């Protein structure tokens, strides 16, 4: 087991390194001079020089990368140009908001998605199956920003049930958090729910045709045990991967949802940082998010071993 984990860990570290290179390169391809953008076009030559020196913009690109990485290893993501404070501080302030929307969405959609997938597979061809398939088709095809706007229009403007936008932290007032958060969370869950339920459904249908399911039936096990014990575990193992992959989608989706509902989270931070050419913030956010996703996938790999004895054996 040790060797396998070590290998996976090595690959993850390698991917994190590549991610850092990519996010650095990506950000340095941004057009426009950050010094001019930050100080305004009327800034004096000296001010611009000083600014460039402060943010190491006068150094060669390769050196800038080394400086950046060195600082990351010390837990420092550099300073934001527009906010004039450490990027880590910006993240620390905004990350909890994004998590308080994203995590419930991820949990909700995974659980509900698996449930819908099972129901859909068991009631194959019946009305419930068609309904779930229809809803998940929409979930995969509708743009999230538009769903958000539609929600605002229907539940906010017409029915006046929910607020149009805004955010309250759960630690501040949980009731208000739910009141403001329910729509963003539901809309963020929708797409993920659709893909999880689709994946669960097709896996279940495939597993149901396997020989060992026929054996289980032939041995006189009741349908409940056949479906919920023998089929489900085999069907859910690949779904774990789907959920892992979808973390990426949730992160991307929260960017849109935050934009629509005016939540000051990581998503809005990135959008404004890109528009403001805030190198350090963009770089830092992209890096942190990607590392998080790599980490999630690493954990997924571990999880695989716990549920699938075949994988566990290959660890030894």
């Amino acid at each position, binding site marked *: 087991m040790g060797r396998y984990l070590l290998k996976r860990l090595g690959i993850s570290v390698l991917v994190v390194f590549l991610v850092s290179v990519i996010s650095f390169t990506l950000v340095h391809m941004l057009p426009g001079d950050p010094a001019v953008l930050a100080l305004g076009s009327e800034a004096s030559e000296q001010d611009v020089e000083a600014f460039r020196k402060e943010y190491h913009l006068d150094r060669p690109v390769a050196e800038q990368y080394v400086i950046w990485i060195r600082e990351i290893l010390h837990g420092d993501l550099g300073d934001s140009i527009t906010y004039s404070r450490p990027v880590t501080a910006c993240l620390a302030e905004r990350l909890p908001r994004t998590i308080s929307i994203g995590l419930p969405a991820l949990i909700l959609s995974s659980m509900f998605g698996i449930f819908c997938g099972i129901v859909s597979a068991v009631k194959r061809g019946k009305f419930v199956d068609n309904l779930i398939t229809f809803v998940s088709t929409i979930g995969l095809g509708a743009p999230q920003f538009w769903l958000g706007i539609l929600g605002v229009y229907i539940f906010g403007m017409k029915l006046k049930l929910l607020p149009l936008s805004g955010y309250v932290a759960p630690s501040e007032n949980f009731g208000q958090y739910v009141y403001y958060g329910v729509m963003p969370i539901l809309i963020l869950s929708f797409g993920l729910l659709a893909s999880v339920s689709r994946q669960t459904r097709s896996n279940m249908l495939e597993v149901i045709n*396997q*020989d*060992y399911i*026929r*054996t*289980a*039936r*032939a*041995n*006189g*096990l*009741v*349908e409940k*045990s056949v479906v919920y*014990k*023998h089929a489900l*575990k*085999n069907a859910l*193992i690949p779904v774990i991967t789907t959920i892992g992959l979808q973390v990426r989608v949730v992160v991307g989706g929260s960017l849109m949802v935050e934009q629509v509902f005016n939540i000051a989270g990581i998503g809005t931070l990135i959008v404004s940082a890109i528009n403001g050419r805030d190198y350090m913030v963009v770089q830092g956010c992209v890096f942190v998010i990607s590392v998080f996703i790599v980490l999630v996938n690493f954990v997924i790999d571990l999880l695989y071993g716990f*549920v*699938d*004895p*075949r994988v566990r*054996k290959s660890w030894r």
Partner: protein
Amino acid sequence: MEEKILLDVKNLRTSFFTDAGEVKSVNDVSFYVKEKEIVAVVGESGSGKSVTQLSVLQLIQSPPGKILGGEVWFEGENLLTYSKKQMCGIRGNGISMIFQEPMTSLNPVYTIGNQLTEVLRAHHKNMTKQEAWKRGVEALAAVGIPDPEARMKNYPFEMSGGMRQRAMIAISVACNSRLIVADEPTTALDVTTQAQVMELLLSLVEKNGTSIIVVTHNLGLVTRYADRIYVMYAGRIVESGTTEMLLTNPRHPYTLGLLASVPKLDSDKEEKLIPIEGTPPNLAQMPEYCSFYPRCPYACEECRQKEAPVLRPVGEEGHFMACHRDVKGGKTDG
């Protein structure tokens, strides 16, 4: 000495409704199995021999499959009138089925012990986990698995094909079924393991008084073990009788063909193997006349004009066949 009849299937009909039309996989099939008897059902793939057995246990996927009619009498009850729940009590407990794919027929994510005790406890509601575990170890030992205590904790992928087949048999017969249906039990195994598995099944007959139906395309295999043989072709039984009758005095052209295509190990003579010409018929487009007509070396114009032949007694008592003509050992008669 009249033995009791354990399973009596009458006029069973099962069809699959596909895009290409109705496929009559089991077309008016009747057969019976006596106590402590080994019966073989022989035919090509697609002849409906497996579907017949799956229909007996009502394991047909529906849709597209459907049991259209007939009676399945087992220990005095017609199983076709049973509810789903009642059928669960029969499967694995009264009638067990062993499948041909030992590699894929066990659930890969549960241990042998887990799957074995689950079946035991499904049929013995009052059995504790400890008792089930003990019975499971005994069942594994009974099928000749060495170190059964340790094997209980193994996953299927940790065992060889022969071991898995044994484990699967152990699970199926753990509840001492009266009848075991073995669907191509040895096809996926190498020759030595094949013999061992057959011997194992034979020992069950002697020890527990179990009856066995062996479904196979391998006529050579069954001639050594079976008491009686049913030959199936295109969803119908075309000839039936004791093994000796069919071997020494085959009457249906298809049986003749089957015998001619099997190498005889115990014969010294150099015999030429003769394959049966043509391919199995398309079951979705069955003719009104005899379904073997297109491939039959003895076919004549009469065969094409008359309706499909039905089973009729020939020769000795208990020998039946379905052919308009009477072919004796390759010579036409009448």
